[in-house]
């Protein structure tokens, strides 16, 4: 999950605060270890190794995440797809080369949630297909870390994993957390707006997190799994929803939709949002 994370809690005393944040961080680490595609012993690696072979059985937690991913795939007309990870092989963000269409054409057959057989709790991947929980893992970890603190009595604080924030409760004096929205075209750390979040979560998808520019066009890491090409409708979409995983899913899906469709979608989801389109125009609710 290689990004900055922090837990902030208000607690009756320092020992308790430390205990709570340690428990929350332990939960984040547990999820990171379990779903990291870089680890040999992770669930993700086990699933991907079995691709092309027989069906494998997954545990209850993984099954519920896969069910969620399936639901999201259906609700987003395929824009949200856990199998889209292989496309990153065509895109080299270090050297900044635009791939040939043929390179993408070779990878696209290996992408597509509808091509896998998922009948809880057994999963069967076709050969050369891959699952990657990167699209929901961080947000899920934020929600779980917050739940751990709430379960032991924490009422005020937040969990911030690389910009995806799940609020446990407002500041001790009842004030909402003021969460900064990164300026998509500014230096890292520059703010374009603040959102007040007393409860719930805020997640942002942006085309500035990983990208390169070539001949005046920006190519970001947010790829449309149906075409293999990066999205271009939005610079960033920030969503406030009761759960981080819901906020993250909404922002990811909205990023992949043209402006009107995306706004309609966000309104139907009844979430607050701040969306900045490719020309820098802001839309908010």
């Amino acid at each position, binding site marked *: 999950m290689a990004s900055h994370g922090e837990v902030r809690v208000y607690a009756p005393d320092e020992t308790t605060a430390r205990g709570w944040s340690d428990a929350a961080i332990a939960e984040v680490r547990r999820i990171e270890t379990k779903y990291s595609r870089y680890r040999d012993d992770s669930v993700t690696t086990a699933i991907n190794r079995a691709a092309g072979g027989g069906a494998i059985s997954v545990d209850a937690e993984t099954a519920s995440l896969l069910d969620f991913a399936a*639901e999201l795939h259906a609700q987003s007309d395929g824009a949200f797809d856990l199998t889209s990870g292989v496309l990153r092989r065509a895109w080299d963000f270090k050297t900044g080369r635009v791939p040939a269409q043929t390179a993408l054409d070779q990878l696209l057959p290996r992408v597509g949630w509808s091509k896998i057989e998922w009948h809880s709790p057994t999963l069967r991947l076709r050969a050369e297909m891959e699952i990657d929980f990167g699209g929901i893992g961080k947000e*899920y970890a934020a929600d779980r870390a917050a*739940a751990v603190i709430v379960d032991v009595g924490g009422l005020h604080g937040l969990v911030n994993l690389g910009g995806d924030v799940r609020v446990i409760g407002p500041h001790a004096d009842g004030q909402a957390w003021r969460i900064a929205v990164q300026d998509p075209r500014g230096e890292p750390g520059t703010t374009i707006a603040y959102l007040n979040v007393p409860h719930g979560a805020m997640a942002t998808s942006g085309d500035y997190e990983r990208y390169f520019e070539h001949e005046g066009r920006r190519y970001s890491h947010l790829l449309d799994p149906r075409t293999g090409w990066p999205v271009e409708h939005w610079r960033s979409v920030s969503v406030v929803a009761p759960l981080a995983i819901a906020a993250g899913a909404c922002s990811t*899906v909205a990023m992949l939709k043209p402006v009107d469709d995306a706004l309609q979608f966000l309104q*139907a989801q009844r979430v607050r949002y701040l969306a900045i389109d490719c020309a820098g125009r802001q839309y908010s609710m």
Partner: protein
Amino acid sequence: MPTPAKTGSILAAALALPGVVPSAQAQVTVPNATLIQFKYLYYKDYQENNGVTPGSSGDRMTVKSPALYLLAPISDSWVFEIGAVYDNITGASPYYHTVLSGASGEGVEDKRLAGDITVTKYFGRTAVSVRGAYSTEDDYRSIAGGFTLRHATPDQNTTFTIGIGYSSDDVFPQDGPVFTRTKNTLDGIAGITQVLSRNDVGQVNLYYANQSGYLTDPYKAIYGVDQRPDSRDQFALLVRWNHYFQSLNATLRSSYRYYHDDWEVDANTFTAEWGQELPEGFTLTPSARYTTQSAAFFYYDPVYDATLGAPFPPGYATNPNAFYTSDQRLSAFGGITLGVKLAKVFAEGWSVDGKAEYYEQRGDWRIGGDGSPGLQAFKAQLYQVGVNKKF
């Protein structure tokens, strides 16, 4: 053509993930932790004197009880609960009214061992529990079972509960003529638990029980006069309410129970507990209880027949087969309990707690009618210490 998004559909899908929202109390969801409790009760009741000699000891029963409880989710839909208690009972008990057995050198010594198992299976928002209980002591044995169904609405804000239970008890007193009699109890409960706000949850339970068989206290029948009907119909309406005071970090748990039976015992019972969170993991909980009860229709005051003397009620000779009891528990009184509990939570799910309570019954304290005269005030002290582990 894009799929029209159902309102709030992503959030709905996200809420289906287990463990992302707090597991509130009063929900029908599998508990997410195993709990083991050990608790020790020291109980002692007494009155002013033995009812015969002024200045004598009024000590009545002393009970020392270690008890265990285990709650264990076995899988994602099965939960086991086991309880066990071992009562060590010694002391004196009234023969009639507040005249103690100790006055004539007779005391009580008994041990009671009881255990119960409850198995619960969860089907989504519905839980089915089956319970079996067994209790054995020198002169009494009870075998009981119960079946309870709980069902929650989709938002888990309302839970409906119904339950039915049956108990078959054998009574075989160790004093007097040898006999074994049975007492059977059939009971049922129906209730609703409702989340009222972020900080409030309420519960209303309607309870009915029918007891039949030998309902008399055998020792009072031998040493006093005690002849009770062979059936008893009981009703209770219990209302409970828990409120969390966010700004005070405290919880108020309160309840009211109305009770009525066909022995004409009517009781109104109020309880309140204030759980105050303190720094360093401490919680201090003062508690109070008040109950007021009417006497059973066959209870007679400590006024005895002119000819036969104590323990016989006036006119007993002309009506020897009527119902009579001198049992203080079936008299009219008001009872007050005051208690305080201190608990501390440690790391790794350990916690310890200690509670001290004082309980007194007096005829004078009855509200809603006259208290039964002529009885010594019943007094009791209860002390509990416990250690718990959650994991």
